[in-house]
């Protein structure tokens, strides 16, 4: 009986703490009143160099613009975690939520809840459903990235031959968007090229290296490896180098210059494609601040983003600029 009592007290306690204080305001920060704005900033995952670079830009923007920045994100691949963090931010009472979305449909439910509570929502890096946010800070669209990747690959291969893709996990949402668009571009423009296989590397460099080594052996005519998650680019390059196929098998991918510099200089990796990641973080916070202050409204065509100057809008997309192709010639100019 005592156990039952304990059980009921436990549950009762949980309910009591909740139900006795329903009147407390959930959005104490408010947007007016000269209070410091709180902007919550979420990467797809923590512990990833790409998003750490993004965060560095966001921190600089927060200092420039005088806002409070919250940084939180999933530490594993649990697809529900982003929703949970957004829902926590809603009850925490923040002014703007900025998210790089892992699950397009899934996260939108949580973001709509935030909007219903009067919290402004902005997405960056990869978008939610359009109705779940005000603006999308677009470093490059899925189509844009896919096209640059596919076009560069085709150019490296001379427009014909076999190629393979290394991705993070088979379930990663935005990479699947890119793969779909790569497929479209492939069918439309490069009928002589053939995608032989797509392999996951679990976001680990060593696994990418092993998968690439296997692909090189299994497909002797392979002409190009396309790595679409950042740890996979140096992994693929190392495998090509160790197989003694430098130059014969081209390597390209989406990655950070710092992780690929040596390979690009040695001619193992022909092209690394990326945008100015730090600027992406900076621009996101600048846009979020302008949105909260009412300086950026739907329908605007430009807005002033701190040190980045005037930024153009296309519809509800805030465009950072085109993806950048790092090659032997220019890679030394970038240090992220």
């Amino acid at each position, binding site marked *: 009986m005592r156990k039952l009592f304990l059980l009921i007290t436990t549950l009762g306690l949980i309910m009591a703490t909740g139900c006795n204080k329903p009147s407390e305001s959930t959005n104490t920060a408010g947007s007016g009143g000269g209070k410091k704005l709180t902007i919550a900033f979420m990467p797809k995952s*923590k*512990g*990833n*160099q790409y998003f*750490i670079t993004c965060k560095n830009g966001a921190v600089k923007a927060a200092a420039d613009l005088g806002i409070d920045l919250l940084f939180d994100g999933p*530490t594993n691949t649990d697809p529900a975690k982003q929703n949970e963090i957004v829902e926590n931010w809603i009850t925490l009472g923040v002014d703007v939520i900025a998210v790089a979305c892992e699950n397009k449909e899934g996260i939108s439910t949580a973001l709509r809840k935030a909007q219903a509570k009067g919290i402004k929502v902005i997405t960056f890096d990869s978008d939610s459903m359009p109705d779940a946010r005000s603006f999308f800070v677009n470093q490059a669209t899925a189509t844009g990235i896919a096209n640059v990747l596919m076009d560069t690959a085709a150019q490296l291969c001379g427009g014909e031959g076999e190629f393979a893709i290394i991705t993070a996990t*088979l379930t990663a949402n935005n990479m699947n968007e890119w793969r779909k668009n790569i497929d479209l571009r492939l069918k439309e423009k490069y009928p002589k090229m053939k995608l*032989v*296989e*797509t*392999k*996951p590397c*679990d*976001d*680990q*460099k*060593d696994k990418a*290296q*092993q*998968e690439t*080594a*296997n*692909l*090189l*052996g*299994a497909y*002797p005519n392979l002409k190009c490896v396309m790595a679409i998650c950042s*740890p996979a680019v*140096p*992994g693929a390059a*190392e*495998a090509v180098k*160790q*197989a*003694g196929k430098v130059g014969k098998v081209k390597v390209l991918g989406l990655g950070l210059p*710092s*992780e690929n510099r*040596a390979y690009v200089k040695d001619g193992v990796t022909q092209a690394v494609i990326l945008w100015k990641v730090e600027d992406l973080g900076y621009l996101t916070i600048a846009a979020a601040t302008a949105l909260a202050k009412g300086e950026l409204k739907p329908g605007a065509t430009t807005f002033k983003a701190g040190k980045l100057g005037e930024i153009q809008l296309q519809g509800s997309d805030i465009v950072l600029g085109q993806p950048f192709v790092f090659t032997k010639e220019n890679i030394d100019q970038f240090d992220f």
Partner: protein
Amino acid sequence: MKRYFRELSVAAALFALLAGLALFAPNFYEPAPLLSRFAAQAPALVVAIGMTLVIISRQIDISVGSQFGVCAVVAGTLAAMKLPLVVVLLASVGTGAILGAFNGVLIAGLGLPSIVVTLATMVTWQEALRLGQQGRFINLPPGMQWMGLSQVGGQRALVALAVLMVAAFAWALKNLAAGRHVYAVGSDAEAARLAGIHPKGTTFGVFVLMGGLVGLAAVMNIVQSPQVDPNAGGGLELKAIAAAVVGGVAVSGGRGNLWGVFVGLLLLATINPALTYLHVEAYWEKAIQGLVILLAVVADGLRSRRGKR
């Protein structure tokens, strides 16, 4: 024959797979890529040796993946400071041994269950590593890769080292008093104690050894590429446990031999490249891995069931 049923059946499965590859994808046997594949699995083999000892002593260690990450980052950081390989190796093995000793104190000293203790240390080291390193790669100085040897030389050395370790440990388990103690403690700790063996000391030693081997494996891994990925080691614990189990080590302790584990790891590690060489889609890989683990134990279970009847 009967005694080694499991080991032999796993070897038969491996042989069948290899024969299939010889028929349908002969380029699987090209020497250079084959050597690379062996070298890439060498660290996992070293970890599996330690895991075998842990399981034979009737414990388990699911923190080895996190330990591997910590050791790799420690080793990488020291190597980046241009310290000689010997120092890097000692530091990595030392770090591993300390992490292992931490497990050992809690498990052998306080008598806490190993699965929970290592679950706790797994999360703790993993999160601490993320906090400290934030996923940044470490660039190694040029001389570090392949320990200053040529690529082929380095790969051969790594494979030789791993196989030598298996041979040495297999010999030690059979012929040294300490090795027999591990079996004795695993099959019946109380009986072992009455026979004059120190079960706590043995268990503690096994966990320290496990950590040290992880440290060694981490160095064997980082010398294969010019950069250290702090996320390396994710999933290593499952790989090592699966290899041990498929190779015939009993989770109830006291039974198992390293050559079986060696074959078990070879089988599991061959599945992934085999699928690529046979041009099977990647998304079947996990299901097939699971089936292989199940088939290995089910075969054993059926046999012992028939034996009882």
